[in-house]
């Protein structure tokens, strides 16, 4: 849906429904229907998660896929590629093999009508450059995910930007993951650590340091100094991987930003994300003229499933209720 102020569209990565997929309470068709029912008409998938018998993409599956798109009024938006550099126990994939792997992912995307392939953050600038001509030939955009703790001034991302600016390839771009805008520590994560037996004083220390946007570089060392064990150390590691940066930094790169992974951990009953301030992010996307999809990526299940029932459908629904509000959509 669009309005006069912007052309931002809404969608869901079916990764969001991984709990129900895993427990076999939702089929792939159920996931597509759930997205469609909340007006999230853009469908993103992880082929390795959603395609039975992957890597064998059958004609039957492709036909069924397009029949579902028509039935539910949905549109394929993106696939996620993985660079399994340690595919073989005894050696590493060569750069040529890595490029070939991306080419295969591009072929899968083309067959499913996906205009975008996400390149996982471990994809090197050399591999992006090597795969770009094939992506151009196939009319697919290959976007490097900007995933915490990386950000737009990080050397790894700067190298990717150098390739994009030097080659001017229309196939290359960025896919920001909203976990780079974790302003407040996700309580589902700290509460899980407490349930796993973490020392409350150390948990408080980690959460307060994060929420004050303090320096988390040596946090894992500090946890060791304070006598923390594996659970506290794990929490510190997580805290040093989330980041909060100014969403306005995206404005400098807006022509390269083609798709947003709308990561979230907890949508409250008030339809607000507890830790990621979408009310600060979406106005920036509108201001920058972003016209791609906000694609939900729910990742809270793993933090609550030990103690609470997971309802990914409701969590995604709440996120889209928030998007509708922030995008000014009129029903």
């Amino acid at each position: 849906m669009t309005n006069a102020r912007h052309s931002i569209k809404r969608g869901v990565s079916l990764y969001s429904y991984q709990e129900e997929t895993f427990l076999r309470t939702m089929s792939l068709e159920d996931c597509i229907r759930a997205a469609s029912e909340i007006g999230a008409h853009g469908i993103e998938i992880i082929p390795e998660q959603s395609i039975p018998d992957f890597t064998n993409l059958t004609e039957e599956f492709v036909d069924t896929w397009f029949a579902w798109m028509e039935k539910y009024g949905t549109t394929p938006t993106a696939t996620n590629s993985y660079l399994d550099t340690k595919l073989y126990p005894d050696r590493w994939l060569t750069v040529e093999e890595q490029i070939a792997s991306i080419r295969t992912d591009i072929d899968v995307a083309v067959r499913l009508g996906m205009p975008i392939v996400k390149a996982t953050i471990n994809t090197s600038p050399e591999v992006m450059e090597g795969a770009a001509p094939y992506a151009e030939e196939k009319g697919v955009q290959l976007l490097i995910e900007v995933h915490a703790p990386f950000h737009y001034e990080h050397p790894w991302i700067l190298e990717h930007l150098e390739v994009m600016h030097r080659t001017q390839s229309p196939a290359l771009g960025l896919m920001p993951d909203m976990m780079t805008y974790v302003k407040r520590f996700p309580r589902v994560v700290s509460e899980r650590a407490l349930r796993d037996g973490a020392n409350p004083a150390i948990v408080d220390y980690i959460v307060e340091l994060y929420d004050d946007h303090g320096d988390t570089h040596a946090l894992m060392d500090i946890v060791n100094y304070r006598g923390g064990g594996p659970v506290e150390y794990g929490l510190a590691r997580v805290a040093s991987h989330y980041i909060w940066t100014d969403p306005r930094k995206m404005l400098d790169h807006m022509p390269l930003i083609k798709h947003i992974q709308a990561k979230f951990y907890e949508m409250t009953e008030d339809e607000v994300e507890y830790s990621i301030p979408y009310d600060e992010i979406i106005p920036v996307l509108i201001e920058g003229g972003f016209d791609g999809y906000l694609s939900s990526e729910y990742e809270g299940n793993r933090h609550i499933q030990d103690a609470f029932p997971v309802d990914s459908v409701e969590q995604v629904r709440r996120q889209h209720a928030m998007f509708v509000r922030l995008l000014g959509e009129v029903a």
Partner: protein
Amino acid sequence: MGPLDDQVVREDSLTATADGLNVAVYTHWYRALPLTSLTKVDLTVDGQPVDPATLSVTVNGHRYEFAELAVKADEYWFTTDPVVLHVPVATAPGRQHRIQLQLGLSIPYILTGPDRTPLLTPSSTDKTLTAA
């Protein structure tokens, strides 16, 4: 720990066969992984450790010796399909067995530490189940 340890070995996972016990095992990772990722299967049945060298495995309708999985990079273990471990222990339908399984999946795109070691995501099961 693994997020979905409960589902790795399920209530209906055990089947008695003429040549031993079949144990259906499900992945706890969110995407399909190449069979080379199935690197650690520390299985104990009724308190007796099972040497992986004696295990064979059926996945996607193909039966392999466990050691053969190390070269099966082009075949994937899908998220909702079981891998069936064929365990050479005596059993019969209706018999109970205590199954302790430490499953380790080597994640080929998440590399950690100075040696670029793939993340080994563990899962731990300890259940007493009845063979069908």
